[in-house]
């Protein structure tokens, strides 16, 4: 398996991003604000697979939403290809744990949703979608409605939809979090192949240490709330990686120890 090496140009640069949310229910300002992110900086090179690893509630998803342009950070900056993101939308593709397939659209029409919003010609979009669905083993389900599909198949359709948005940066927020272990392993395989064939930059969010080691070029370990970057760990292991590879086991142990310290601190 030859892999296109990650380029040297920074695709995504996040500098000193902080975010607080107002308390729910109370009207008074100032008191009780929830600090979710504090001075988070990270970067991803072109075609790099970067993972944010951290305990639940560490602000990973908030960072995701900021990168996706859903809301701006309180402080700091997000640059995509050197251009500030500044809440301009439509520049990244996004996928989360929920597949968010629209039940009234057939599989193929769910897959082309991103292209449709961009105003791409329908016939060409469908052609492209059909090709991708075939590669993801969904060729017989083009015209099915999502309810007829299993969880893993639905998530594969969501992955095709994400890929078909034709964005260079994919933000994947715990995309396989709701799947069983075997389906999850298969999905990781699909994602790895996708990365090899299409060479997108991927910002991947997970709390699963093994998943992070298997997939990533680099891992950022986040602390519990307020989320900060605790460590940056390159994973220079050859691919494809197996959970039982010596290197994988070693990196896993290292990361678990780091997270263990972090959790111990958080619960002290």
């Amino acid at each position, binding site marked *: 398996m030859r892999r296109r090496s990650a380029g040297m140009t920074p695709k995504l640069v996040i500098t000193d991003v902080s975010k607080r949310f107002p308390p729910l229910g109370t009207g008074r300002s100032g008191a009780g604000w929830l600090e979710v992110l504090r001075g988070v900086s990270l970067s991803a090179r072109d075609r790099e697979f970067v993972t944010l690893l951290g305990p639940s509630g560490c602000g990973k998803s908030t960072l995701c*939403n900021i990168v*996706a*342009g*859903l809301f701006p950070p309180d402080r700091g900056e997000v640059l995509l290809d050197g251009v500030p993101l500044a809440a301009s*939308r*439509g*520049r*990244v*593709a*996004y996928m*989360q744990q*929920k597949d*968010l397939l*629209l*039940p*009234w*659209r057939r599989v193929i029409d769910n897959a082309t*949703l*991103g292209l*449709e*919003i*961009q105003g791409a010609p329908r016939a060409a979009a469908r052609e492209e979608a059909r090709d991708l669905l075939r590669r993801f083993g969904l060729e017989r389900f083009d015209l099915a*409605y999502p*309810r*007829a599909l299993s969880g893993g198949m639905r998530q594969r359709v969501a992955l095709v939809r994400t890929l078909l*948005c034709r964005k260079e940066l994919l933000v994947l927020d715990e995309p396989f979090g709701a799947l069983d272990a075997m389906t999850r392993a298969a999905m990781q395989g699909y994602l790895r192949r996708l990365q090899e064939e299409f060479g997108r930059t991927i910002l991947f969010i997970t709390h699963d240490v093994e998943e992070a080691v298997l997939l990533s070029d680099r891992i950022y370990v986040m602390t519990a709330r307020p989320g900060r970057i605790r460590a940056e760990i390159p994973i220079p292991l050859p691919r494809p990686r197996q959970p039982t590879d010596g290197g994988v086991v070693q990196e896993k142990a290292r990361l678990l120890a780091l997270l263990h310290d972090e959790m111990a601190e958080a619960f002290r």
Partner: protein
Amino acid sequence: MKAAPVREARVPMGARATGTRGEAARAWSAPAKRLAAQAGPPALLLAAGAAAWEWAVRAFGVPFYILPAPSRIFRVLVDDRGLLAGQAAVTLEEIFLGFAIAFVVGVGLALLICASRVVERAVYPLVIASQTVPVFAIAPLLIVWFGYGLPSKVAMAALIVFFPIVVNTVDGLRAADPDAVNLLLILGASPAQVLWKIRAPGALPFVFSGIRIAVATSVIGAVIGEWVGATQGLGFTMIHANAQLHIDLVFAAIVYLSLMAVGLFLAVSGVEWVALPWRRSAGA
């Protein structure tokens, strides 16, 4: 009615080995069988009720101007079919027009309520509160304003149908998954695209359940309108026949009205089945 599906169900049993033809027949007979299973018991009960009614009327010698026997009502249905069908057409026209107006205005208002916070906060509470006004109570006013002809009945039907359509459409438009809405926004969708690609299609099942409630009540609306003041229609026929102690004709009109409501309900369900293929159950 009951025998046919049963016999058909037997055909594929024998034909199973031959393949596609048997399977096609089985696929077709499955819904028919289900329908028979669903409609059978209430139909039997209805028949038993009618038989008891017939027997009681004859046994106790109840005069026809108090309670006519089912057989007598049936005879009126046959003998006066021209009259009844003509009057039914009038009532049906009132229902269709009233329903169409309420649907267009109701869905439009629901879209406005969901598009604008100002409209939502100002108008929606009034829409809800308007439900406390007994619409039938203003029927005499409608006669004063719109006269004895078609318009007052159309207004009555429209007023009654309006509320379930607005409320269900608003509920449906609001029911969209916020994460799905966010996904579209992240992909760069405009508010109009969010409305037409997520909110509107997601609202359709709610709209249809509103319509199903509405068609049944629209019949009531038109009839009440005709009772209060009219020169034709099934409601007018009932009032007229009642005054002349033609109770059998009153019952015949009631039969027509009931069939009308059932027919409208089935028609809506049929449209829903065609329009929302993704809602069909896996077996159908």
